[in-house]
């Protein structure tokens, strides 16, 4: 599947792009269904009527995806022209259902999403802990809420000055509160606010380079890529897959982020040299081809950034931010196997000496026993590690399972329910991983200080 994504045969690449988009659409359907099944809606008077209405809408989305299934996965469908429009219709409808979630009047708790960026801060990254707000909109925000709000007011003629120490405000679509892999989309507007607050673009920009706003975007992409590696690009690319099919612009600066992320990209598996970044890059490039052929999507022209400009930005950011704490290939594979085994990936197993068993057997007194224990503690995984392995798991397992279920003879109901169980387990395990790693880090840091 990964080799197909980078294949030169247009029909193969188009088929992979459409199946990935279909898988993403199914995941979004599953997340909105979970939100609607929340029993808290029924505790309010308007809850029952609104839930019935939105469930009707969601059933319509599901029927559309069911009808699209044979178009995307049926035999001999590799060159189907109707797949993008069919998926796009389902996604457009799903966006409408999502927008109307506000009618429920339910306060959506952030849950583990609140710990997400705090974990980055706890790992020593120089970012400000933002305020995170769930939103029923599903439009991309490349900028932090405060900045876009002030810009909109300025467009009306009202100028509101920002205070120097403002906390960045970020939004997250309500349906994404369930999926830790989607939370990485927030890191791009966070990076934008950090670049702005520290005047990075102004410090770096040469007189002859691209305009200042564009240069800021280059710095933002570089900063965002350094936070957790290619996972930020993967999250925004997965969202862009659907956005473009439903007529929305998709995440801005996706191509800049792809370039900035390449230096931190690692192979998806020991048997496949393609990285997650290359996988999604190939899919988005295919979408661009589809756009030109079928006129379904809009794709922005890439920014003309020179290699020297990228080098300047990278050298500067290296001094500001360390490289993301990514796993080695062996570590990534070991953690991937843990996820496959239904276990969270909050910590790296300890590296035990070869004679650990013998030492343990010989530890018949307290002194020798406590001596053995020094090898036995786990090391908490970084957020970059958890997300990196999570994205590999999603591409290899979740997309793989979706393809298998949707291509086979399983009924739609059985297929979507099986996929739902898998996806929700993945989300739960990754949430548990982030929570446990964060708490463990607090105690480990104190112990090691």
């Amino acid at each position, binding site marked *: 599947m990964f080799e197909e994504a980078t294949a030169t045969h247009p029909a193969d690449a188009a088929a992979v792009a459409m199946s990935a988009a279909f898988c993403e659409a199914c995941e979004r359907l599953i997340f909105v269904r979970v939100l609607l099944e929340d029993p808290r809606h029924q505790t309010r008077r308007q809850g029952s009527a609104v839930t019935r209405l939105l469930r009707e809408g969601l059933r319509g989305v599901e029927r559309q995806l069911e009808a699209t299934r044979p178009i995307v996965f049926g035999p001999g469908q590799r060159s189907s022209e109707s797949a993008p429009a069919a998926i796009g219709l389902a996604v457009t409808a799903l966006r409408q259902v999502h927008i109307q979630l506000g009618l429920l009047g339910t306060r959506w708790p952030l849950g583990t999403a609140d710990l997400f960026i705090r974990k980055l801060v706890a790992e020593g990254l120089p970012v400000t802990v933002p305020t995170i707000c769930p939103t029923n909109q599903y439009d991309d925000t490349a900028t932090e809420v405060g900045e876009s709000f002030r810009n909109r007011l300025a467009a009306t003629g009202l100028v509101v000055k920002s205070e120097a120490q403002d906390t960045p405000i970020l939004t997250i679509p309500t349906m994404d509160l369930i999926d830790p892999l989607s939370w990485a989309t927030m890191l791009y507007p966070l990076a934008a606010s950090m670049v702005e607050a520290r005047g990075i673009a102004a410090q770096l920009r040469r007189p002859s380079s691209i305009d200042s706003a564009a240069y800021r975007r280059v710095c933002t992409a570089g900063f965002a890529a350094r936070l957790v590696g290619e996972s930020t690009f993967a999250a925004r690319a997965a969202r862009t897959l659907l956005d473009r099919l439903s007529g929305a612009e998709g995440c801005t600066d996706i191509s800049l982020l792809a370039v900035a992320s390449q230096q931190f990209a690692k192979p998806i598996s020991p048997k496949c040299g393609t990285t997650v970044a290359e996988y999604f890059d190939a899919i988005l490039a295919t979408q661009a081809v589809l756009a030109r052929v079928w006129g379904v999507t809009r794709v922005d022209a890439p920014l003309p950034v020179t290699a020297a400009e990228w080098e300047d930005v990278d050298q500067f950011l290296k001094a500001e931010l360390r490289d993301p704490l990514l796993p080695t290939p062996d570590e990534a594979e070991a953690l991937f196997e843990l996820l496959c085994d239904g276990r969270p990936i*909050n910590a790296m197993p300890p590296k035990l000496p070869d004679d650990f068993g013998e030492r343990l057997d010989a530890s018949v007194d307290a002194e020798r026993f406590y001596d*053995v224990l020094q090898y*036995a503690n786990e090391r908490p995984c970084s957020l970059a590690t958890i997300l990196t392995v999570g994205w590999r798991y999603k591409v290899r397992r979740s997309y793989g399972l979706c393809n298998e279920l949707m291509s086979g003879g399983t009924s739609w109901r059985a297929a979507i329910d099986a996929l739902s169980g898998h996806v929700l387990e993945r989300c739960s395990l990754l949430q548990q991983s982030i929570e446990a790693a964060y708490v463990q880090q607090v105690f480990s840091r104190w112990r090691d200080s």
Partner: protein
Amino acid sequence: MSILNEREILRRLLIDRDVVVTPIVDLATQLGPTSLDVRLGTRFQAQKRSALPYIEPLQDETALRADIAAYTQDYVVLPTDPYVLHPGDFALACTLEFIRLPADLSARLEGRSSWGRLGLQIHSTAGFIDPGFAGVITFELSNLGKVPIPLYPGLRIGQLCFYTGQPSAIPYRSKKLTKYAGQIAPMGSAFYLDPEYKAIRHEQQAEKERTSDAILD
């Protein structure tokens, strides 16, 4: 059936790897002669006042879940912010650790005396962990003391003892009725899923039919 000592616990955890307890933060502090301390996680489910007279388990499941949601509130707490359990309060929480037991091992959860002496009870019924269990362990927290107790994620509030026995033919996830398998957050009671309520509903329906037949006669 015998209880594992510290070296046997370590062997099963790190060498055999058929027992999973993760994260292991600091074994030197957590490991006792025949027990392993477990820590408080970040998630809590508190009970709040509501206008409900009682929870009717025989009603429609959607309405039942709505009733349960009406009197519970979920929280995720930061490691530096406590969840405060006031005197007389009850809340569900869970271990920081994800735990998995093989088919030949069961475990018992007990409190730690440091907390017991403050009046903190960590479970009333959730003390026994079946062979084959996988997930986080639920704490049923009660404050029986007279002062509020601040509870921070990561605190060692419980301890597990492990017991070996013959491998079970029906480890937890293979059991016919498992309501809490694979949980990673405190789940409220799913008592309404017990098959006894189906029997009661069936009997109530049969009584209604008998009564209406008698009226027609």
